[in-house]
């Protein structure tokens, strides 16, 4: 059984798709032109088994984040299908569910509930989350806006990893946090993988993903350039990118 399976998935965006005012709509109807479109993700297929970890690499705008959103079920593919087995915790942007005017403790509760934890379970893992984040107990009652960005990220990551997901989706976030915390995350993710759970992470750079994942997909302009073991893919990716950049 696969944890994640993508089969010929495409995602099409339209220009001016977001922030559309009435004016734009009327203009479009009057001009009678179909909106310009481009495919952010084109015919992508890959699968991840339980206990496997896959890195998606590629330059900015390659469609990596769109791919993660598709897997997280935040948007639906225009073609193909995405199938996901298991509880997902998506860490797509640092603290998307976090609010600066809430305290650290309040943010933990809010985000744990948004990630699907029950009231009981949240109370049970609360201390574990605080401890893992390494934020001193006296700061947990302070507003999030007084935290440094590293602290906020550590808190966000701690909540996500402690919700006991079967599938963790991570988007670039591990780039922040000091080396001690990164070390901690590494251990946690390895532990996580060893217990048969899967990881899908995204990065535009080598480095951490190479230590975390065993498989890789190289994405460019929404299309898969190469798939395979991470070392091979990363070598090719680095070699290809330098002359062009």
């Amino acid at each position, binding site marked *: *059984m*696969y944890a994640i*399976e993508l*089969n*010929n998935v495409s995602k099409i*965006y*339209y220009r001016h*798709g*977001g*922030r*559309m*005012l*009435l004016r734009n*709509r009327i203009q479009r109807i009057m001009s009678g032109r179909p909106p310009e479109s481009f495919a952010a993700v*084109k*015919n*992508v*297929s*890959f*699968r991840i088994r339980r206990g496997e970890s*896959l890195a998606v690499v590629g330059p900015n705008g390659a469609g990596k984040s769109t791919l993660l*959103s598709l897997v*997280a*079920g*935040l*948007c*639906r*593919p225009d073609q193909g*299908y*995405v*199938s*996901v*087995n298991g*509880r*997902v915790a*998506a860490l*797509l942007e640092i603290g*998307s*569910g976090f*609010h600066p*005017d*809430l305290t650290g403790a*309040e943010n933990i*509760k*809010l985000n744990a*509930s*948004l*990630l*699907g*934890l*029950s009231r009981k379970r*949240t109370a049970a893992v609360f201390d574990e989350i605080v401890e893992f984040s390494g934020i001193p107990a006296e700061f947990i009652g302070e507003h999030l806006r007084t935290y440094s960005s590293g602290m906020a990220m550590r808190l966000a990551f701690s909540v996500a990893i402690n919700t006991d997901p079967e599938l963790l989706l991570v988007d670039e976030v591990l780039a922040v946090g000091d080396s001690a915390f990164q070390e901690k995350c590494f251990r946690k993710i390895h532990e996580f993988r060893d217990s048969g759970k899967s990881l899908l992470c995204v990065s535009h750079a080598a480095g951490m993903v190479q230590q975390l994942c065993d*498989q890789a*997909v190289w994405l460019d302009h929404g*299309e*898969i*350039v*190469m*798939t*395979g073991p991470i070392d091979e893919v990363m070598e090719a990716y680095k070699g290809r990118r330098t002359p062009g950049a």
Partner: protein
Amino acid sequence: MHTEDLFTSRPEEASGFDENDRNASKSASRKGSEPSWNGDLLFALSNLVIKDFKVRYRNMSLGVFWSLLNPLVLMGVLTFVFTKVTRSNSAPHFPAFVMCGLVPFNFFSIGWTSGTTSLVENAALIKRVPIPREIVPLAAVLSNCLHLLIQIFLLIVLVLASGLPITVSWLWLPYLWAMEVVFVCGLSLVSSAVNVYVRDTRYLVESINTVMFWAVPVVYSFSVIPPVYAEIYKLNPLAALILAMRDILLEGHAPRWELLVKLTLVAALTFTFGLAVFQRLKRRFYDHL
């Protein structure tokens, strides 16, 4: 089903694809954009309500007292204008009379406006956290309920201060307010979803609210409305609510049953319609936020 493409490559090509494919297609295949979320809906909703509430009041030094102060000031001004300046309204207990209109109207306008903008304001949440999207506008409306409770308290104090008695028909009050909350939730489900696609919706809602203030009997009584328009008035659920409140609090008798039935039906239908529209529109929220 698996049309190979030049750009498509699969890891573990050799690992018996077809055999596994049947299992995979049986599992939760994702065609809609509904995230596979199986959390505690009530816990998430209550946390969102608390968040909205705390964020709104934490930065105000007077905090919740603004929900007392605002309607009191408006009531004072309206009482002065309509009883001292124009002397056009001779309703007895005018402050309590105005408040019967102001409390439901305030909740309606503030609840609907914050519900309408909720999805756009929480775009980061919608795009990044796989929660059921319905809870965002619902939380926005419900976070105004404490506001409503405080104003209800104010209204009751005012009614008692005017020397009006407590009667059995007061038991209808919680039901009426519950129906108003359901009605505003239904409206917000529609308007918040439409607002994602057409951002002008919130301005339309704000204009409707301004019209509503004068189009429902907040500052005048139903009896002064010419009979030609009276039927149209009765179709407006907000007007029906205000009339029912005055029946109960000022006249001391239960609202007429057809009013109650109409209100219940409108609230239930609006909510069902809201959910149905939301279901349809939520599929492309991600692309438009």
